[in-house]
């Protein structure tokens, strides 16, 4: 009986080593592929954005020309205009977007003073959005479209209507795969293996010594709660009357807290009350504090690894 157990153990550890090896191998292959693809993409990527290619801007009769190197180019449905679309960011994403539209007519004249409307549309779902894009004419046939709010990922069209006196024409730009914007102002990073989970730390420029204590232990998930923050000077004396702001972040997920916590009370003796903290899920969280006292200002970040 005993032998069987030992052998079972041996067998399983051999199997694990094998599997681990295999997984590492796969990661290696993936890394190479990703590197190769990125290299390919970088080499294809445009070197200069929004460069006008027709510096001379010759107006010839009868033919439409592309004026912006990185633009998406289209003729309007009735063939009255050429419409160019320049994205302000590499691609459209869910959330707020902005684009430039450049319009020329058959004689390659800049179309100015036209009445432009832009409707974001999901053709597969037959709906648009609840807020209208804002259009500002820039002159020279350029119109900036702000506040294009795409409410979900998927297949979108930007339907553009151009009106000049009694002429009306349309152009539709398709965006087959608008993606979720992965968190704004939140960078995505993986948790390092040796995460420093200390609850007491020196600020980044060593001006203050900061520690936190949660009024609820263990730190809860899905529950609004209060912390007490203690701020000391380098010599160990308390920092009174500091101005403190804070923010929380889930670096692996690219999102922040689901509340907006604040320091609501100066408890004296370098202690401060932080109210309104709430963590919406388990995992790695970073709490960042900015501390200002007199002419000194410094920041500190605490890592938390929360479990249910």
């Amino acid at each position, binding site marked *: 009986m005993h*032998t*069987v157990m030992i*052998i*079972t153990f041996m*067998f*399983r550890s051999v*199997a694990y080593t094998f599997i681990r090896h295999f997984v590492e191998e796969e990661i290696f292959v993936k890394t190479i592929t990703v590197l190769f693809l990125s290299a390919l993409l970088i080499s294809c990527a445009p070197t200069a954005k929004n460069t006008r290619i027709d510096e001379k801007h010759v107006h010839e009769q009868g033919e439409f020309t592309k004026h912006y190197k990185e633009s998406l180019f289209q003729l309007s449905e009735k063939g009255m205009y050429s419409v160019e679309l320049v994205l302000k960011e590499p691609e459209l994403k*869910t*959330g*707020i977007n902005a684009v430039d539209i450049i319009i020329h007519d058959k004689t390659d004249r800049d179309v100015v003073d036209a009445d432009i409307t832009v409707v974001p549309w*999901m053709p*597969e*779902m*037959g*709906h*648009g*959005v*609840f807020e209208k894009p804002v259009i500002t004419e820039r002159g020279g046939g350029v119109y900036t479209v702000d506040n294009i*709010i795409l*409410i*979900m*990922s*998927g297949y979108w069209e930007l339907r553009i209507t151009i009106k000049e006196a009694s002429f009306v024409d349309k152009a539709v730009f398709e965006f087959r*795969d608008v*993606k*979720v914007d*992965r*968190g*704004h102002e939140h960078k*995505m990073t993986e948790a390092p293996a040796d995460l420093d989970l200390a609850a007491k730390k020196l600020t980044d420029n060593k001006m203050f010594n900061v520690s936190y204590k949660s009024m609820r232990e263990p730190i809860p*998930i*899905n529950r*609004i709660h209060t912390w007490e923050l203690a701020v000391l000077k380098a010599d160990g004396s308390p920092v009174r009357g500091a101005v403190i702001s804070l923010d929380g972040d889930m670096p*692996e*997920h*690219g*999102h*922040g*807290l*689901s*509340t*907006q*916590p*604040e320091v609501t009370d100066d408890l004296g003796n370098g202690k401060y009350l932080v*109210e*309104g903290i*709430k963590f*919406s*899920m*388990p*995992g790695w969280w970073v709490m960042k504090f900015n501390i200002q006292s007199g002419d000194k200002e410094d920041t500190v970040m605490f890592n938390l690894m929360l*479990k*249910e």
Partner: protein
Amino acid sequence: MKKSFYRVLLSMMIIAVLCASSAWPLDLHTWSEDEMTTLKSLWIGSLPPVPADPSNKYSVDPKAVAFGKKLFFDNRLSGNLKVSCATCHPANMNFADNLPLAHGMGTTTRRTMPLIGMAYQTWLFWDGRKDSLWAQALGPIESPVEHGFTRTQCASIIIEHHKKDYEELFGPLPALSKRDLPASAKPSPEEPSALKAWVSIPRDKKKAINRIYTNMGKAIAAFVQTIMPTPSRFDDYVEAALKNDFSRMVKTLANDEVKGLRLFIGKAKCTNCHSGPLFTNGEFHNIGLTQPENLPPDAGRSDAIAKVLADEFNCMSEYSDARRADCSELRFIDTDTYKYIGAFKTPTLRNVAERAPYMRAGQISTLEKVLEFYRDLKPGQRSADLEHGELNDLQLQQLEAFLRTLSAPLDFAK
């Protein structure tokens, strides 16, 4: 010598087969310390006692519960005398109507939500536009597609039919004549004629009407709060695991269900949002669902933040019993509307198998399809919270089998 070698080889082969099929019961039911913590956090036994609602001082008063129950089932509180809360939240169907969109006096643009463990919810409705159960109850009553009723009509009904119940709880009813209570009067910008009638009522009378209306909401809330889950097979399993009662564990859940559970708390990362004993974090997420074609676009939480802050019946309003300091959720509400475009409240998964169709507008008809939806979200289309490894068909079946273990009858004030 030779014989023993073969014996060893044979046992290795048997073990290999057992390992590969992972039907090895010991392994299947062995949970690490971390996994045990997660299991315990999902267990019904981890539900804390019902927290008091500081904004409703009647929330646990048995008289309020009894009165609220009457009102919950009262058809008179509707424009056509046919709709009560129970029309869309029938008690014999786990308080849900199992329709893609709800039908009252008209059709809503969202699905009826299950009412399970409501006492623990911070934000109410799919978009969280209400911050208490009593304020929530007052919404459907004045919605033209639900009860199609008004607060003035409610006051009339209370005065006429529920005087005794009301006065025992809330004290004497204010003196309001028929003339003070025009039928169609409510502060609703969508219905200018009703708005005009409301604005024309003298201020102190308006307050008196609102007081009756909010007290009514508080009684209904006291009843709704009593609707609670009871232990499901999953809970029995966790209880057995906590007691190290191996044979009971094996008897309680089938192998597929346990594998599904392992995926749910592990690789599939469902507990990122479906966490805690009610399987919801109560937060708002855009999971990349598409809005049905026949419905208007729905911005979800993004549009509700200002609504709850401006709500005439929120935690900081004059009709709330809470001190300002007790209104933490409202005081520290995240006002980043951009972040919540298309985000909706994570629904509880208790009794989920009993209430198809799914999602905020009933756009997915079966559990199987819900799981396919989660699997087929392309990496670029899903937020990092929804990131999970490849899931194959068998694993989806296991997840579904697990979700089916979460059913159990609901308990509520009898």
